[in-house]
C-alpha cells in the first residue's frame, strides 16, 4: 500500500486550558480536494495552521501530522521551512494583506522559487510570468511588474494562487480564498483554483464557512464543530443526506437560491401597493479624486450616475450590486449622511435639501451596518448604546424600560444591558445594533450588508428576526447586499445596481427567475450552488 499524502492523527491544538482543535484525524490522498467547513471558532483555520506549522505563539499542537509518511509536528522551524512553500503552501483570505505592498507581483511569486530552487532571478521571473498566465491573468508580463495595489481583488487572489503553486507543491491549503471577493470574481477564482490543482495533481484543502463554495470545488468534506470532526465523507453525500444534526442545520441554513441552478425556488409575490416612502429622482453623486498633475482636471468618480428609485411603504426593497456599484452611497444618501451632487431625494415627505430637513430624517429612518464589531462603541455599555438614539433624538418616556423592551424584541437576555459589546458574539452584536436602530421608532430601516459578516446559520436567524421585526414595528426596509441569495430570501422587490446605474428592477420573483439583463444573468450564474452544479456548467471566464 502506498503512503497517503497527509495523515493527521489525534491532532489537538490548545491555548492554555482552551482546546481549539480536539483530536482531529483524517487522511488525504495526493490530488484529492477536501473541504473543511465549520463556523467561526470551529477550529478550521487552526487545523490548517497546525499542518503548516504556522500556529501563532501560545498555541501548542499535539498528535501527529505526517506528510509522505514523515512526521511534521515537533519539527522545528528550520526543518519546516524546507517544506513550506515547497511541498506545501497556503493561500490566505485577504489578498491585499497577504501580499507585500512594496514588492512587485512578479518578484513576490519568484520568491518561493528562489528559496527552494537553485535558479537565477531572471529564470524565476520568467516562471512567475508563466504562472501568472496559467491562473488567467491577462498581459502577465506587465502585471508581473505591477505592485499589489495596482491589481484588482480578483487578480491579487489569482497572484496568490500562482505563488502557492510556484514550486509544484503536493498540498495547497486555501483559507477562505474567495470570501472577500465579489460573486462573479469568486466564481472565476474558484474555477482557476480547481482547474490548476487538477492540472498539477496537487491536493487541495479548502477551508470555508460557505457550503456551496465547498460543493463546487471539493470532492470530499470534513465538518468541524468546536474543534472536533462531526461528519466527513464525499461532498454530495454529506450535503444531500447529512447524518449529523449539526451538518443538517448547516445545510438547512443555505439559502434556497444557493442550492441548485436547475431548481429555481418559488417566491411568494407580496401585494404591496403603498405610497412611496422614499422617492429618489435622477440621483448623481460624483467624487473628485486628487489631481494627478497641475494641468489635467481632477478625475471624477461617478458613484451614482442617474439613479431613480422609489421605496414603497411596507415593502422590503433589496438593493444588490458588487463592490463599487454605489449601493452604500445610496444608503448614506437616504440617511442624509451624504448629499447627492444632483437629483432630488424625498423621504417620508421631507425633501432632503436643507440641514434642518436632514436632521428630521433621523426621526424617520435608521440604519444597521455591516460590521457589528465596528458599529458599536467598544467603550459603552449595551444599555447606553441602545439608549443613545433616544437621548440624541429626545424621545420621551422611560429610556431604561424602552431599552429592556428592545433587547427583548431582538431576543437578547435582559442582563445584556450591563455588559460591553465585546462580550457578545457577532450575531448578538448585530442584534444590539438592530435594537439601537429600532430605538427611536423609525418607519424606515436601512440595512447595509447586515448579515455579511455573520456565519451562515446566524445569517438565517438574523434575516428571520429582521423580517419579524419588520412586521412587529410596521417598518419599510431597504436591504443592501452583494449576496443575491440573501437578497432573494428577504426582498419583495429588487434593484440591481452596476457602476452607479440601475440595471434592472422588479419583483424579486421575476428578477431572479426571468432576469432580463445580461448582467443580472451573469450574477445569478456565478452563485456557487450546494449541488456543485455551477462549475460543472463550465462557468469559468
Amino acid at each position, binding site marked *: 500500500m502506498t503512503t497517503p499524502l497527509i495523515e493527521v492523527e489525534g491532532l489537538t491544538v490548545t491555548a492554555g486550558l482552551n482546546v481549539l482543535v480536539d483530536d482531529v484525524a483524517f487522511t488525504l490522498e495526493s490530488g484529492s480536494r477536501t473541504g473543511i467547513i465549520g463556523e*467561526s*471558532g470551529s*477550529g478550521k*483555520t*487552526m487545523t490548517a*495552521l497546525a499542518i503548516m506549522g*504556522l*500556529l*501563532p*505563539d*501560545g*498555541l501548542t499542537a499535539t498528535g501527529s501530522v505526517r506528510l509522505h509518511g514523515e512526521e511534521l509536528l515537533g519539527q522545528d522551524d528550520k526543518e519546516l521551512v524546507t517544506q513550506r512553500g515547497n511541498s506545501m503552501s497556503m493561500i490566505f*483570505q485577504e489578498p491585499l494583506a497577504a501580499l507585500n505592498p512594496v514588492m512587485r507581483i512578479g518578484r513576490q511569486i519568484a520568491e518561493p522559487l528562489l528559496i527552494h530552487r537553485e535558479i537565477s532571478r531572471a529564470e524565476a521571473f520568467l516562471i512567475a510570468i508563466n504562472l501568472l498566465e496559467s491562473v488567467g491573468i491577462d498581459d502577465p508580463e506587465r502585471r508581473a511588474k505591477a505592485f499589489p495595489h495596482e491589481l484588482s481583488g480578483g487578480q491579487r487572489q489569482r497572484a496568490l494562487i500562482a505563488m502557492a503553486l510556484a514550486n509544484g507543491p503536493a498540498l495547497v491549503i486555501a*483559507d*477562505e480564498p474567495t*470570501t472577500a471577493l465579489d460573486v462573479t470574481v469568486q466564481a472565476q477564482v474558484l474555477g482557476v483554483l480547481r482547474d490548476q490543482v487538477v492540472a498539477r495533481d496537487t491536493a487541495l484543502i479548502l477551508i470555508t*464557512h460557505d457550503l456551496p463554495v465547498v460543493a463546487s470545488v471539493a470532492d470530499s468534506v470534513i465538518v468541524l464543530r468546536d474543534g472536533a470532526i462531526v461528519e466527513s465523507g464525499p461532498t454530495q453525500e454529506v450535503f444531500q443526506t447529512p447524518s449529523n444534526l449539526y451538518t443538517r442545520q448547516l445545510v438547512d441554513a443555505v439559502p434556497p437560491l444557493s442550492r441548485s441552478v436547475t431548481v429555481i425556488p418559488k417566491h411568494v409575490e407580496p401585494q404591496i401597493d403603498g405610497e412611496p416612502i422614499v422617492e429618489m429622482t435622477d440621483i448623481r453623486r460624483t467624487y473628485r479624486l486628487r489631481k494627478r498633475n497641475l494641468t489635467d482636471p481632477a478625475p471624477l468618480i461617478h458613484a451614482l450616475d442617474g439613479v431613480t428609485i422609489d421605496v414603497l411603504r411596507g415593502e422590503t426593497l433589496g438593493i444588490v450590486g458588487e463592490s463599487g456599484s454605489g449601493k452604500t452611497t445610496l444608503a448614506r444618501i437616504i*440617511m442624509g*449622511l451624504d448629499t447627492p451632487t444632483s437629483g432630488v431625494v424625498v423621504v417620508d415627505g421631507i425633501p432632503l435639501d436643507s440641514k434642518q430637513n436632514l*436632521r428630521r430624517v*433621523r426621526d424617520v*429612518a*435608521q*440604519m444597521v*451596518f*455591516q*460590521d457589528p464589531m*465596528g*458599529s*458599536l*462603541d*467598544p*467603550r*459603552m455599555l449595551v444599555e447606553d448604546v441602545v439608549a*443613545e*438614539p433616544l437621548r*440624541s*433624538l429626545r424621545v420621551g418616556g422611560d429610556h431604561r424600560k424602552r431599552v429592556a423592551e428592545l433587547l427583548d424584541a431582538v431576543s437578547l437576555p435582559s442582563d445584556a444591558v450591563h455588559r460591553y459589546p465585546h462580550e457578545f458574539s457577532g450575531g448578538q452584536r448585530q442584534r444590539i*445594533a438592530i435594537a*439601537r436602530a429600532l*430605538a*427611536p421608532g423609525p418607519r424606515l430601516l436601512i440595512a447595509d450588508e447586515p448579515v455579511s459578516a455573520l456565519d451562515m446559520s446566524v445569517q438565517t436567524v438574523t434575516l428571520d428576526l429582521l423580517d419579524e421585526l419588520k412586521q412587529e414595528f410596521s417598518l419599510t426596509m431597504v436591504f443592501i447586499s452583494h449576496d443575491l441569495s440573501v437578497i432573494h430570501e428577504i426582498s419583495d422587490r429588487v434593484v440591481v445596481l452596476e457602476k452607479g446605474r440601475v440595471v434592472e428592477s422588479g419583483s424579486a420573483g421575476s428578477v431572479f427567475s426571468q432576469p432580463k439583463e445580461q448582467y443580472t444573468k451573469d450574477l445569478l450564474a456565478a452563485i456557487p450552488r450546494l449541488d456543485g452544479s455551477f462549475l460543472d456548467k463550465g462557468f469559468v471566464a
Partner: protein
Amino acid sequence: MSQPAVSDGTNIKGRRRRARWKRLNFFVGLAIVLTVAGTAIVSFFWTPFDPTQIDATSPLLGVMEDGHILGTDQFGRDLFSQIMVGAQTALFVGILAVAIAVAVGIPIGAFAAAKRGLAEDAVMRTSDVIYAFPPVLLAILLVAALGAGTGSAMIAIGIAYVPIIARVTRGAALTVFQLDFVTAARSYGRGDVFIAVRHVLPNIASVLIVQVTVLFALAILAEAALSFLGIGTQPPTPSWGRSLRDAQTFLQVSPRLAIWPGLAIAFTVLGFNLLGDGIRDALDPRLEASRS
C-alpha cells in the same frame, strides 16, 4: 473567521518573561513617580533645613556633615532640602505645562479629525509652524513678554507641546472617526462635538495617556534646561535646573553639587518614562486579549 494573531517568532516562555518584565516597568515607574510626588508633598510641611536659609559659616559641607544629608552649597544652604522643594517646582511645571498642552491640543486635534478638508489643513499647518519653533526660542520670546519665572517657562513648555498632542490626537481620532459607530451616531442625530467627546475620546484615551506621561518627563527636563539657562525658575525658588546652573561654577571644587540635582532629574524622568511604557503595555490589545 478566527484569524490568528501575527506571530512574532518567539516562544511562549520568552513572551511570558517579557510580559512580566513589562509589568515590572509599570510598578517601578509608579514607585518612582509616587516617591517624587511624596517628596514634593512632604516638602510643603517639612524639610530638614530651610532650603533658602543662607549660612555663611558652613559653605560647601560634604555629605552627612553637620546633619546636612547631602551637604551644603556655596552659600551654606542645605542641598537635600533644596532638592526636596525642587520636586515641587518640577511637578508643578510638569502638571501645568502638560495641562496646557492637553487643554489646547486635544480640541485642536479632534477638530481637525472631525472637519477634514481645508479647516484641517489650516489648523494642522499652523500647529506645524509652532512645532518648528525650538521650545527654548519660544521661552525666550515669552520671557521677553512676561518676564522670567516658573510661570513663563511653564507656559512656553505647554505651548511647545500643543502641536505634539494635537498631532497624536488627530492621528488616533482619524481612525476612530472612520468607524461605523461614529456613522451610526451621526445617523441618530449626534453632532461632531458630542461624537468627539463621548465616542472618539474614550477610544483614543489610552494613546493619549501614554503620550501625556512621556511629555510630563520631557516637560520636567525642559524646565530644568530653561532654569539652567537662567530664563526659568528664578532665585530663591529652588529648582533642579537652577541648582545645576549654580553648581557649574564650583564643578572643579565640589562636583556633587551638580551630581545630586542631576540624579534627581534623571530619576524622575526615568520614572515617568517607565510609567508611560508600563501603561502602554497594560493597554496593549494583544495582552488584553490573552488576559480575558
